[in-house]
C-alpha cells in the first residue's frame, strides 16, 4: 500500500519572503550531487542547491541581468560539476566553490540546446532542439561543431535519458500538427529510431515518462482525457522501416468516484504504482488540485492529498520524495510505497517465489480463438476474426484501429505459410506488445498454430521461440495440448523439461512418456543438448569419476560392497555406481530431466498403469537414481536437496513407492535389482531406526522446553504502579 506523509516546505517561491526566483516559477528540479540534494532552476536567472532534509539552501548561482537560464541546471555526478545553459546557446560549467557565474567556464555552441541529461555513471548528454545529441566531452572538444537537425518543424516536448546496462539511451518525444513522434537514440550503435505514436481522438499526451527493463523501453503517456497509456518499444529492431507506429494500451484510467482526474504530470514509483498530480472536478463542484498515488495492477487509487492552494502542475520525484509547488512554496512530501498484491490486501499473500500457479484463462475467448484457428483456411473467416479482434481491442483500449498494426489473425495466417524467419520476427513484435487482456488465450492460439505447422512441415520448428514463450508466460498443457507431443517426437528434451516444470496439468500419460524418453536417451547424446542444470548442479558431483575413494566409504555403518559384487553386470557403462546412493547413476543432464518429471503433478491412480509399461532396465535405473536422491537428501538434517526446483523428499519417496508398486514382481525376479533393493532396504531400515530413536528424544526435549518456559514466567516480581 502507498501512503503520503505530512509535507514540509523546502523554500518559498514568491518574490518576497526570502524565497528564490522572481515568481516566474520553477523551470525544473534535478537531483544534486548527494542523494539528499536537489538543484532548483527557476524560470529566471537563478539556480539553487538545497539540502532537503535540512530544508535549507547550500548554494545559489545567478547569471547576469539580461541573461536567462534556458535549460535546467544539472549535476555531473562523476565530476561534481554543475552544468547550465543560458540564452539557449551558452554553456556554463562550474563547481561548488565558484561564486560568480560570469567567471566560470563558458562555451558557446552552434545550436540551441533543449536539455542536458546527466546519468549516474557516464558523461552528460546534451540534446539539441533539432534532435541532435552529443555527449558533453565530445561537444567540449569542439563547441562550434555542426549539429545536425533531424526534426525540421517538430517541437521536442519531453526527453529522458535511460541506462540499459552501461549503455546510455536517450528517448524524446516531439509534436507536429497534433501528431506525436518518439525518437530513441542509442549511443553505442549511434542509431536513431523514429516511431510514430498511435493517435488518440480528442486527446493529446500531456506528459511522458519512461523506464527500461529487459531491453524494452516502457513509455507511459498521460493523456488529456485522464488516461495513462503504456507503450512498449523494443530496443532491438529488425525491420528498418521508415516510421513504425507504436500501439499503446490503456494502463490506467484516472477515475475518482466517477469524475476524471485531469492529470498534468506524473511519475512512476515502482512497477505497480504511479503518482499523478492533477485537478479533479467533481460534478457541480469547483475543481481541486490533488496529488494521487495509483496502483496500476488493481487500477485503484491508493492515496491522495488535496492541494487547496494550487500547483504549477509540475511534479518531481527523487529518493522517495515528491517535490511540487503548492501555492507560493515548494513543498516536499515523503511517500511510502510497498509492492502490493490483491492477495496481500486481503491477507493471503503467498510467497511469490514458490507460487507457480497459472493465472486464469478466459475460456470463452479461448474457444473463440480455437474456432478461428480451425477455420482459418477460409480466408473470409480469418478476416472476420481479424475484424473481431480489432473490435475487441477497440473495445478494450478505446484505440482507433490502425490498419497497419499487426493483428493476431494476420499472424495466425502468416504462421501457416510464411518463412520461419519472418514468423519469428512477427512473433517478437507480438511479444513486445503491451499485455493484451486475453493475451494468454492469444498465445495459446499462436502456439497451436505453430504446432500445427510443425506437424505438417517437418523442417519447421521454431524451438527458441517456443522455449521463450513457455519459459516466460504462464501457460498450461490444456492451452496447447499438442506441443509436448511434438516435442517428444522431436526429442526436444529442453522444451520438455520446461513444460514439465511450468505446466500444472500434464496428463499422466505424457509424464510417463517423458520419463521413458528421458531414461532411454543416452547420456552422450544429452551432453550435447542444452538442458537446464539448475536443479542438479548443487548436489551432483559432476566429477564423480574417480573411483579410488568409493571402496573406503561406509554408508551409515554398513558396507554394501559384498552384496553388490555380482549384480551390476548389466550396467557396464556405469560401473562407477557400485555403491548406490553414493554416485549419481545418471549424467547431470539426465538427472535434471528426471527431476523435472519428479516435479510434475500427477495422480497415482492414473500414473500407475502407465508406469507398469516401463521397461525393467529403465525402471531399475530410475530406482537407482531415486535411491541416490534419497541418500543425498538424507545427508542433511533438513532432508532437502539444495538448488532451485530440486525434488523434495516427499516427491522422491512417492516416486520410489510408485516404481516399486508398478514393478514389484519384476524387481523381485531381476538379478541386477537384487543388490539395489537390499541396499535400499538397509538404508530405509537404518532410517526407521534412527527416526524412532529421535521420536524418543522428542518427548524428553519437549519436557525440557516446558520446564524452561515455566521458569521464564516469573513467579515473583516487584513492580512500580502509578495511579493518577
Amino acid at each position, binding site marked *: 500500500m502507498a501512503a503520503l506523509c505530512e509535507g514540509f516546505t523546502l523554500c518559498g517561491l514568491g518574490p518576497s519572503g526570502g524565497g528564490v526566483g522572481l515568481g516566474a516559477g520553477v523551470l525544473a528540479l534535478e537531483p544534486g550531487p548527494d542523494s539528499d540534494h536537489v538543484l532548483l532552476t527557476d524560470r529566471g536567472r537563478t539556480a539553487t542547491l538545497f539540502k532537503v532534509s535540512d530544508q535549507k539552501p547550500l548554494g545559489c548561482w545567478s547569471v547576469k541581468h539580461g541573461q536567462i537560464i534556458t535549460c535546467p541546471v544539472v549535476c555531473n555526478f562523476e565530476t561534481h560539476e554543475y552544468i547550465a545553459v543560458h540564452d539557449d546557446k551558452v554553456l556554463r560549467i562550474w563547481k561548488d566553490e565558484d561564486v560568480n557565474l560570469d567567471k566560470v567556464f563558458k562555451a558557446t555552441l552552434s545550436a540551441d540546446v533543449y536539455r542536458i541529461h546527466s546519468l549516474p555513471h557516464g558523461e552528460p548528454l546534451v540534446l539539441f532542439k533539432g534532435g541532435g545529441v552529443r555527449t558533453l566531452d565530445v561537444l567540449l572538444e569542439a563547441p562550434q561543431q555542426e549539429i545536425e537537425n533531424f526534426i525540421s518543424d517538430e517541437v521536442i516536448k519531453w526527453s529522458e535519458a535511460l541506462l540499459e546496462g552501461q549503455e546510455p539511451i536517450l528517448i524524446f518525444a516531439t509534436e507536429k500538427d497534433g501528431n506525436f513522434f518518439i525518437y530513441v537514440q542509442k549511443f553505442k550503435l549511434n542509431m536513431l529510431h523514429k516511431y510514430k505514436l498511435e493517435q488518440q481522438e480528442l486527446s493529446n499526451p500531456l506528459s511522458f515518462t519512461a523506464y527500461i527493463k529487459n531491453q524494452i523501453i516502457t513509455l507511459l503517456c498521460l493523456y488529456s482525457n485522464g488516461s495513462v497509456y503504456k507503450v512498449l518499444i523494443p530496443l532491438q529492431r529488425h525491420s528498418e522501416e521508415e516510421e513504425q507506429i507504436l500501439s499503446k494500451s490503456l494502463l490506467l484510467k484516472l477515475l475518482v468516484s466517477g469524475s476524471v482526474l485531469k492529470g498534468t504530470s506524473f511519475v512512476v514509483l515502482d512497477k505497480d504504482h504511479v503518482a499523478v498530480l492533477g485537478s479533479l472536478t467533481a460534478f457541480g463542484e469547483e475543481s481541486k488540485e490533488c496529488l494521487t498515488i495509483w496502483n496500476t495492477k488493481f487500477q485503484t487509487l491508493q492515496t491522495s492529498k488535496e492541494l487547496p492552494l494550487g500547483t504549477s502542475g509540475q511534479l518531481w520525484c527523487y529518493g522517495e520524495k515528491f517535490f511540487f509547488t503548492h501555492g507560493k512554496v515548494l513543498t516536499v512530501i515523503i511517500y511510502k510505497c510497498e509492492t502490493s498484491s490483491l492477495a496481500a490486501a486481503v491477507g493471503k499473500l503467498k510467497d511469490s517465489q514458490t507460487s507457480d500457479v497459472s493465472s486464469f484463462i478466459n475460456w470463452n475467448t479461448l474457444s473463440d480463438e480455437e474456432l478461428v484457428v480451425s477455420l482459418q483456411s477460409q480466408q473470409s473467416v480469418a478476416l472476420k476474426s481479424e475484424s473481431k479482434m480489432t473490435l475487441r481491442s477497440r473495445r478494450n483500449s478505446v484505440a482507433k484501429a490502425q490498419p497497419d498494426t499487426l493483428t493476431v489473425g494476420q499472424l495466425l495466417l502468416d504462421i501457416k505459410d510464411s518463412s520461419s524467419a519472418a514468423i519469428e520476427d512477427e512473433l517478437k513484435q507480438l511479444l513486445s506488445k503491451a499485455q493484451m487482456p486475453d493475451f494468454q488465450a492469444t498465445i495459446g492460439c499462436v502456439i497451436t498454430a505453430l504446432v500445427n505447422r510443425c506437424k505438417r512441415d517437418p523442417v519447421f520448428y521454431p524451438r527458441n521461440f517456443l522455449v521463450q514463450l513457455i519459459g516466460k508466460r504462464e501457460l498450461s498443457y490444456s492451452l496447447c495440448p499438442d506441443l509436448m507431443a511434438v516435442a517428444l517426437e522431436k526429442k526436444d528434451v529442453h522444451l520438455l523439461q520446461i513444460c514439465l516444470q511450468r505446466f500444472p496439468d500434464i496428463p499422466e500419460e505424457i509424464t510417463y512418456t517423458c520419463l521413458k524418453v528421458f531414461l532411454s536417451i543416452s547420456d552422450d547424446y544429452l551432453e550435447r543438448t542444452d538442458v537446464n542444470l539448475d536443479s542438479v548442479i548443487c548436489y551432483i558431483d559432476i566429477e564423480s569419476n574417480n573411483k579410488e575413494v568409493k571402496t573406503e566409504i561406509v554408508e551409515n555403518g554398513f558396507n554394501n560392497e559384498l552384496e553388490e559384487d555380482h549384480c551390476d553386470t548389466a550396467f557396464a557403462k556405469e560401473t562407477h555406481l557400485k555403491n548406490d546412493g553414493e554416485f549419481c547413476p545418471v549424467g547431470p543432464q539426465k538427472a535434471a530431466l528426471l527431476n523435472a518429471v519428479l516435479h510434475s503433478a500427477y495422480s497415482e491412480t492414473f500414473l500407475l498403469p502407465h508406469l507398469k509399461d516401463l521397461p525393467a532396465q529403465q525402471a531399475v535405473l530410475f530406482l537407482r537414481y531415486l535411491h541416490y536422491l534419497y541418500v543425498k537428501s538424507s545427508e542433511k538434517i533438513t532432508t532437502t536437496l539444495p538448488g532451485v526446483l530440486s525434488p523434495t523428499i516427499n516427491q522422491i519417496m512417492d516416486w520410489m513407492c510408485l516404481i516399486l508398486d508398478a514393478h514389484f514382481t519384476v524387481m523381485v525376479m531381476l538379478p541386477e535389482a537384487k543388490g539395489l533393493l537390499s541396499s535400499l532396504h538397509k538404508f530405509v531400515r537404518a532410517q526407521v531406526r534412527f527416526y524412532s530413536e529421535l521420536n524418543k528424544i522428542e518427548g524428553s526435549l519437549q519436557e525440557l522446553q516446558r520446564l524452561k518456559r515455566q521458569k521464564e*514466567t*516469573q513467579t515473583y*516480581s*516487584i*513492580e*512500580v*504502579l*502509578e*495511579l*493518577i
Partner: protein
Amino acid sequence: MGEFEVHRVRFFSYVPAGVRCLAYHRRADRLALARTDGAVEVYNFAANYFQEKAIPGHEARSVEALCWAAGDRLFGAGLGGHVSEYDLERLRVKRSADGFGGPIWSMAANAGGTQLAIGCEDGSVKLFRVVPDGVQFERSLERQQGRILCLSWHPSETHIAAGSLDLLHVFDVSSGRTVQRIMVNYHVQKLKKRECVVWSIGFLSSGTVVSSDSFGRVQFWDWERGTLLESHTVSNSAVLSLAVSEKEDSIVVGTSAGATYQFQLLPVKMGSQDKHWVRTKPFQHHTHDVRAVAHSPTALISGGLDAQLVIRPLMEKMQKKGYEAALRKFTFPHRRLVSCARKARLLLFQFSQHLELWRLGSTNETGKDGEVLPVCRVPEHLVQLKSKGPEHIYCSCVSPCGSWIAYSTASRFHLYRVQYEGDSISIKKVTNVPKLLLPAYQLQCSADSSSLFVASDRGSVHMLQLLEPGGCKHLHTLRPPSGTLEAVYLLASSADGNWLAAASGDWEIHIYNLKRFKHHCTVPTYSCAVTALAIHPVTNNLVIAYSDQQLFEFGIPEKQYTAWSRTVQNCGLHKAWLERDSPITHIAFNPKKPSHILLHDVYMFCVLDKSLPLPDDSASLMNQSTLKQLPETARKRQLHAFKICKKFQPLLFADLLDENCLVMVERPLMDIKTQLPPPIQQKKFGT
C-alpha cells in the same frame, strides 16, 4: 496520586477442583454445584451470581449427584454410598443415610420433590422419601445388571428411566418392575462393538427418553415401543451430561471435548406442527470434560473439569441485549483464600488441605511507572502446615504481626504460635484451645494481634484472647439480639479495637462494641449479599461492598450512612462499575490517606478517592491510561474518584502493606491449565 511498589505474587499454586455436578433450583433461582473434591457451593443468580454458600470438601465424601427437593433442601449422593442432606445455614452435612447399594452414581428427585431415586453400583434403583428429618428408605425397584449411571423421573412421577452400560431401562414406579429395556448400541456394527456407556438421561413428558452416551451420540427413544426416534452424533468423544429445560423445548449437552451443544425442538417448516430436535448452538467454553450441565429458563449452565462454571444466557430469552445477556465465567471462589500479615510482610495461602506461609521479598531501588525493580531478597517459603484428617479447611488467618496462625476445618480448630529468630523459624501448636461450636466460617485477628475473632453459626462471633508465649482464652461470645440461624461469614474489626462488624448468611450486618461486649447496632438491611467488609482505621466508618456492586459507607459511632455514601446513592455509581461481573472480595485502607478506599475483584484493583468527584456515565471509568498521556495541568479536570488498574489479572488478593507498598496475588489461568490433565486430543484442521 501516587506511586506504589507492587509485590506481584504468582507463587500461590492454587488449583480449583473440577466441577462434578450441578443442580439448578428454579424457584429460588439458585444453582448448587459440587466439585470433584466434594465441595458444594451455592450460587445465587438473583444476587448477581454471587457464590453465597460454600461447604468445603471432604476426602471421603465425593459428590456424584445433587438434588433440590422438598422446597429449598439440598441433597447429595456420592461414591461413599450415602445420601446426605446439606445444612445450608451452618454449611455442613446435616445428616446422611446409607443407600445400601454400594457407591451411588446418580440421584434424581421427582417433580414434587417428595421422593429421591438413587442409582447404585449394584444395579439397583432405590427410592427414598424426603421426611422432615432427612430421608427415609422406601423401596427398591427391580434390580438390573450393571451400575445405574443416570436416572430421570417422568414428570408424572409414574416412571423412571435409568441408563446403564449398553442399556436403558424404564421402571414402573408403582409396581417396581422394569417395563422396557433398550439396547443403545444395537445399531453399531458388530466389529466396532465396544461398551457403550449411557452417561446421562432425560425423560420428557411426551414419553420420549433422551440419552447421551460414550459414542458421542444424543438419542431420542420412544420408551413404550423401545424404538429409536432420532439420533444425533455430536462429538467423537463421549457426551457426558445432559439437561432438559423446564418447557422441554431445549436440551443442553456437554461433551468430553469441552464443547456444549444446544438442541431445540423446532418445527420442520414454518408454522408446521411436526417438530424435530435440531442441534442449534455449539459452544466451546471449556478445555476439558464438561461433566455437568444445567438449564435455567434463560441460560445454559455448564461446569467442567477445568474448574470453570460458565453461564451462557440465551439471547432469544433476553428482553434486551446488554449486561444481562453477557457470558459469565467463574473460576475462583468468591472468598478470600489469602491473608496477609502487613507488619511482618507475610502471606498465608489456604489450600484445600494445607496452608503455606511465605515471606515477601524486597528491593532497595525505586523506579518509574511500569518498571520492574531488581529483587534484592527473594520471597521465602517459610512453613507448610498440613491439616490432618479427611476434612478440608474452611478458613484461615495470620495475625498482622505474623506470629499467630489459625485455621478451622469442619470439626477442628487449630491455633499456632510462630516464632522468628533471625532466619530460623519455629512453630508451636497451641494445645488447649477452648471448645467452640465448630466449624468456624471466618477468622480475623485484631489489629494489635491480641485477640482473634471466630465467626460461628447462629450469627455468633467468639472472641479469643491470644496470650504470650502461646496460649489463648475464650473472652466472650457476641450474639445478635434478634437471633438468626445463619452463620457469620464475614468479619471486620476496627484498628482501635473498639468495633467489630459481622455479616451473616441472611445478609444482616451487626456491629458490636468490643469494649463493652455489647451489640451496638445493625446496618440497615440491603437486599443483596455482602461480599466484603472493612472498618476504616481513622474514621471508624464501615465500608460495605454488595454483590450488585453497590458500595456503602456506614458511620459506626453515628449509626448512620455517611454523607459520602448518601451522595453515592444519590448520584449512582458508574454504569461500567455496576456491570462488572465479579464481586469485590477485599477492602483495605491507607491510614496515611484517609480518603482512600482500596478495593479489588478478580479483574481489577481500584483505589477509590472519596475526595474526588464521582464519574458520570459519560466519562470513562477506566481512565488511567488516558490520564497518563495528559500533561499534569490537564489532568485535574479529568480526575474522578475511581482509579482502576487492570494490569494484574486474575487477582485473588490485594492489600496495602504500608503507605505505598502493595501486594497483589495473581493466579494466571495458564498456570492452572498446566496443572490439569491433558484434554482429549483434538484434531485441528490441517494438522
